[in-house]
């Protein structure tokens, strides 16, 4: 008993209060912002109460997880991963469908979104594998297992289908294996795979909307059919493969040494990427494709998807230096801002508290991320560092894409702003992440 008490004392004295402080300030700002953005609905109290409840649950989880040694989590990570997969599978059968996506469990008092937790589980499981196989991770065959972890997770999420939640897995995966010591060429092949699987559906949508004349040509029509018809796709893939092999043969004859494995690798990635693009294509909804296209070519749809970005920019820009004052934003209060309490909450902050307030928020995020990077550095083992860097990549990705989206610098992907956006599961998940980080940090001196 005495040693236990001592242990907890040492944990509490070694906690990074700056990290928790940042997260807490952001959560409080989030509560105020949610109140302001739901005022026009007439019942802001309901929204704020739900958000507070989620915050409370998140804090409890956070404290609990700080108490648990993260090494224990790492040790059990494959079992936890299994539970996560079970959650995702049962979601497909028992989940509640909202706006065409089966992503929530109805828990009576609130909807629980498992994907918010499974991405943390994925980070832990990946860290476990990478830290125990670090010596050989530069070998390609050691990447098959991590790829399987990724594949099951992302595949099940795309079946919901929830494209935006699936995106975040890729930067986490790629940067984690890279930091853990994977071969750069292997990493690039995986990036190419990701680009092909997301790129084919988006490119075909883009061509369909922007250059319909191209599809009407015989060559264009053939390639376009390849984006959804598997037989056509196979013909195209085989011809490209033959072409690549011929090029290799030609180069080989010129006595330039280029390993055949390299070409075979590219061909494999091409095939794999194209097949997974069929899955992605099915999970992508029409409006999501459109949003991406609008980001590339905003003139296509000024009153549809482009309207959201435009109104968001008007909201932020009109805040000027000091903002229009708390609760007095007209873009927010009169409903011109879309999705204002979830994805576009940063726009309402920009409008109501101006440059001063919004850059202050960004400064807190900066401090928050900086503290995570300190944890990456100070962790006592490789596993802890990898978990922390995975969480850092996740938060940075959410932050940059969300804020970039409200400013019209990134496509509208539907990624929330951590701690601020309305959404119970996301808040709980963010605080669980803080708990894991503190669990790592507070044990940096223990042996």
């Amino acid at each position, binding site marked *: 008993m005495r040693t236990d008490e001592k242990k907890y004392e040492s944990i509490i004295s070694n906690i990074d209060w700056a990290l928790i402080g940042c997260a807490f300030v952001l959560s409080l700002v989030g509560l105020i912002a949610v109140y302001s953005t739901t005022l026009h609905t007439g019942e802001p109290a309901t929204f704020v109460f739900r958000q507070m409840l989620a915050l409370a649950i998140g804090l409890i989880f956070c404290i609990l997880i700080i108490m648990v040694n993260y090494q224990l989590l790492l040790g059990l990570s494959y079992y936890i991963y299994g539970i996560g997969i079970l959650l995702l599978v049962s979601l497909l059968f028992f989940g509640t469908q909202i706006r065409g996506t089966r992503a929530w469990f109805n828990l009576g008092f609130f909807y629980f979104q498992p994907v918010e937790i499974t991405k943390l589980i994925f980070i832990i499981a990946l860290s476990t594998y990478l830290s125990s196989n670090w010596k050989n991770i530069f070998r390609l065959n050691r990447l098959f297992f991590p790829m399987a972890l990724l594949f099951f997770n992302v595949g099940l999420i795309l079946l919901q289908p929830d494209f935006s939640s699936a995106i975040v897995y890729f930067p986490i995966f790629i940067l984690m294996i890279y930091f853990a010591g994977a071969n750069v060429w292997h990493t690039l092949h995986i990036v190419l795979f990701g680009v092909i699987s997301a790129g084919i559906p988006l490119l075909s949508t883009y061509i369909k909307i922007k250059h319909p004349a191209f599809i009407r040509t015989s060559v264009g029509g053939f390639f376009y059919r390849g984006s959804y018809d598997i037989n056509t796709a196979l013909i195209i893939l085989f011809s490209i493969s033959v072409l690549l092999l011929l090029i290799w043969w030609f180069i080989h004859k010129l006595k330039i040494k280029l390993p055949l494995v390299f070409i075979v690798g590219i061909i494999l990635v091409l095939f794999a990427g194209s097949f997974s693009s069929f899955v992605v294509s099915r999970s992508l909804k029409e409006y999501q494709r459109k949003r991406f296209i609008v980001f590339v070519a905003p003139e296509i749809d000024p009153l549809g998807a482009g309207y959201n970005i435009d109104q968001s920019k008007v909201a932020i820009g009109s805040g000027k230096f000091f903002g229009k004052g708390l609760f007095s934003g007209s873009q927010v209060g009169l409903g011109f801002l879309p999705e204002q309490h979830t994805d576009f909450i940063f726009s309402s902050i920009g409008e109501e508290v101006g440059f001063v307030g919004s850059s202050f928020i960004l400064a807190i995020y900066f401090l928050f991320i900086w503290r995570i990077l300190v944890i990456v550095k100070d962790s006592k*083992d490789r596993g802890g560092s990898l978990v922390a860097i995975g969480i850092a990549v996740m938060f940075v990705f959410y932050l940059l894409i969300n804020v970039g989206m409200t400013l019209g610098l990134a496509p509208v992907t539907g990624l929330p702003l951590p701690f601020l956006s309305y959404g119970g599961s996301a808040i709980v998940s963010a605080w669980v992440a803080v708990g894991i980080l503190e669990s790592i940090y507070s044990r940096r001196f223990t042996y």
Partner: protein
Amino acid sequence: MWQKDSLIYYQDFIKKVEKWTYFFFAALFFLIFYLFFIQIIKGDYYWKRSEKNRLYVIVEKSPRGTIFDSMDRVIAESSLSHSVLFYPFSKSNSSIKETSERISGILKQPKSKISGFMSESIKSGKVVQIAKRLTREQLFAIKEHQNSLHGISISGISKRNYYGALQNSHLIGYLGEADQSFLRHYAHLGYKLGDVIGKSGVENQYDLHLKGADGGWQIEVDVLGKHKRFYNYLNPQKGNNVKLSIDWELQKTAYDAISQTGHPGAAVAIEASSGRVLLFVSAPGFESNLAFQQDEESAGFWRDVCGDPKKPLLNRAVAGLYPPGSIFKIITLIAALKEGLVAEDTKFFCDGKFNFGDRTFKCWKKEGHRRMDLRGAFENSCNVYFYQLGLKIGSENLLRHAKIFNLDKKTSVDYPQEKSGNIPSKLTQDFGGESINLAIGQGPLLTTPFQLAHFASIIANRGKIMKPFIMDKVFSYDNETIVSNSPLQVGEITLESSLWDKLIKYMRGVVDSGTGRACYIEGVPVAGKTGTAQNPHGDDHALFVCFAPEQEPRIALAVLIENGGSGGAVAAPVAKKILSRYLEVTPTDTKATSRDFGN
């Protein structure tokens, strides 16, 4: 620091992470920079857009400024008419019922109609107009009970009134709505679709001064367009007033005189010393009060005006192009004297016609003027004498002199739609005989009455060219001058002083004893020149230019009577009335008007 691994692996890992940390720093820095860009640098732009998003304005048009003549007589002014608006912001049903009862009592309109408007307004969430053009009594009754009339408000609409509409119609112009083609060119000046703008004349020229700034009720709307609450009332700002150099009485005299001839016509007078335009009339005029009415009562007006064979919409003063006829003999005379091609005592014999090659040119006087010297030929406008001069001068030389007097250019008076005359620099076909026709102002020569008046003023000034102007000054409602015109010399035609003396002496002779005797005024020395312009489409146009008094000219005048016939018989008497009116002389010799002294 990892406890179980060697330092080198740890350092390798940290190095990779650090490299990527810079990406994050750069991205975050860029986001803050971009926030700065759209919130601080482009903040005003986005702020205006957000205001535009939320504020719907029920426009209350600003009253246009008043237009005065030189003696401060009102030519055009705007008056307000009032309408009743209903705002659907009150939610209580009983107060709405009470309001509709009271309003129907005041307006003397059926209650069902009023409550119909109101329920429509509440359903759509938008403001509606219940009644327009309130009488004084209705207006006061509503104002009196304003507090008990929930949701009722009064809004003003301005209406334009023109006085002396017919005589001033071309000068002042008329109003219309700004349309797409107008906005394509002028939207940057703050015009919006449906704005009332000056379509022609002074209304058009000084529209930016006259129009003022619209006000209205700003109402906050949500994204669905529902009116949420009353936000602000902006007082419409009345436009600035414009004072013209025009003399109302002179306008009336001229318009009546032209109308009495039974022909369309135009008259323009300029104060020679300053360039101030005193008279600007084109007849027939039109009822400019009817030209634009917001409630579309003007359709009949436009049908009538457009179908009228006398073309009342044609502004003959600045856009009507006429051959100058014998008035051009002034140019011929100047050219001949300047080049020394003729002396005062050079005599030619006129037997009524002139043969050149196989062509015969006639004099207007069939029996001929017999043997004449230069002065006699000018005063009696002998064509044959001038045919001979024309031959000596040559066509190109003649045209060059016409250009010296700017007869091919716009006078650049501050009036829109001015046309420039046409003086070709070379004749397309000249077999030697064309200068004969040119010398008496026929051929491919076209001028506007305004140009001729300006021409007369240049002679009155002995070569000094003043820029003509119609606007004296623009001043605000509190009498602060905003812009004003002052005399501006824009050029000078240098001729020997003796040549000016001769020309003016001859022009005096035209009125005293020549073709312009119909304009002779007892006690006032008038210098003038008659013109009868041959018109291939009908009767000759009667023209007369003059200035008076001869030595210290106060007024230079041009009169045109379309298809009027002889200049001396038709145009000169009109000029006489105008001059007498301006110089405050009562015309005595009325008999003279009925006699023809030649062209």
